[in-house]
C-alpha cells in the first residue's frame, strides 16, 4: 500500500511537470496572430491539457489513499522539477535564491514524506466506524434517547446494523458535526407503548 502511494505520488508529480512543460512549449511556438483560444487548440497544447487532466484525475485518486496534509507538501516537489525543467529545456535563468528555495522545498517534502501517508481509518475497514467520532456521537445520542425513555431499550441497538450503523462513515454526519439533534439517531427504535418493544418478562407479567 505504501509503495503504491509513493508510486502514484511520483506519477502525479511527473504528470504535473510534463503537462506544464508541454503547455509552455505549445505557448512558445504558437503563431503570434493566434488568439488565446486558438493558441490552446493546437495539437501540442491539447496534448499538454490532456496530460494535466490526467494529473488532476490521478491526484484525486491519490487523495483517496493519502491525507491531504501529506499529498500537498510532498507533491510540491513539482515546483522544484518545474524550475529544473525551465532551466534545462527553456534555458530560463534561476537565481541563487531560487535554488535555495528548491532546497527548502525538498527539505519540507522529505520531512512530510517521513510521516505516515494516511492517519485516518480506512473507509472500507469494518472496524473504521468503531473508532470514528461519528460512531461515538451516534452511540451517545442513542444512550441519551434511552435515558429519556427510562433506559429500557438500549439493547434494541444491538440488532443487525441499519444504515446508521453501516461500516462506512456517515458523510453527512462528518460534514456537519454539530450538537446532537432532538431526533434519536436510531429512528427505527419502537416506541415504548408498542407491544414489540416490551421485554418478554414485562409481557408475561402484564
Amino acid at each position: 500500500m505504501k509503495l503504491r502511494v509513493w508510486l502514484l505520488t511520483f506519477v502525479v508529480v511527473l504528470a504535473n511537470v510534463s503537462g506544464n512543460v508541454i503547455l509552455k512549449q505549445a505557448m512558445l511556438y504558437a503563431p503570434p496572430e493566434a488568439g488565446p483560444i486558438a493558441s490552446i487548440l493546437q495539437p501540442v497544447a491539447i496534448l499538454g491539457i490532456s496530460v494535466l487532466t490526467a494529473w488532476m484525475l490521478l491526484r484525486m485518486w491519490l487523495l483517496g489513499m493519502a491525507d491531504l496534509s501529506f499529498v500537498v507538501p510532498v507533491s510540491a516537489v513539482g515546483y522544484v522539477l518545474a524550475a529544473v525543467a525551465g532551466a534545462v529545456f527553456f534555458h530560463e535563468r534561476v537565481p541563487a535564491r531560487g535554488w535555495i528555495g528548491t532546497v527548502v522545498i525538498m527539505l519540507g517534502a522529505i520531512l512530510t514524506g517521513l510521516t505516515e501517508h494516511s492517519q485516518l481509518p480506512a473507509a472500507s475497514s469494518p472496524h473504521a466506524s468503531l473508532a470514528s467520532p461519528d460512531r461515538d456521537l451516534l452511540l451517545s445520542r442513542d444512550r441519551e434517547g434511552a435515558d429519556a425513555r427510562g433506559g429500557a431499550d438500549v439493547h434494541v441497538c444491538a440488532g443487525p446494523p441499519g444504515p446508521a450503523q453501516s461500516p462506512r462513515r456517515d458523510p453527512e454526519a462528518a460534514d456537519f458535526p454539530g450538537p446532537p439533534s432532538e431526533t434519536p439517531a436510531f429512528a427505527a427504535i419502537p416506541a415504548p407503548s408498542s407491544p414489540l418493544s416490551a421485554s418478554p418478562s414485562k409481557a408475561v407479567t402484564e
Partner: protein
Amino acid sequence: MKWLYLGGIVGGTVCSDLLQSHGMRNANGRRWKLPLSIFFMAISFFSFTQLLRIAPLSFAVPASAASIAIDTFLARIILREKVELRRWVGAILVAGGVVLLAQ
C-alpha cells in the same frame, strides 16, 4: 483588486482540495463533492489568469503558496487528519521554499 483575485486563487484551491480529499474518502460524497471541487478549481484557475494580467508572476506564485499552509491547517480542523509536528514543519518549509523560488 489583486487581493480579490488572490482570495479567489487561495480560496478556490483550498475548497477544491478539501472537497476532493473528502469526496474520495467517502463513496457517497462523490456525486456532488467532486464536480463541485472542479468548479472551485476553475475559479482558482480563472483568478490566477486574471491576477497575472495585473500583477507580476513573482507576486502571484509566492502569494498563492499560502494555500499549502492553509490546506494543512484545514485538513486538521475539517478533515480531522492527525497532523504531527513534522508535517507542520514540512508544510511551512514548502510554502517558504515556494516563496523563495518564485521571487
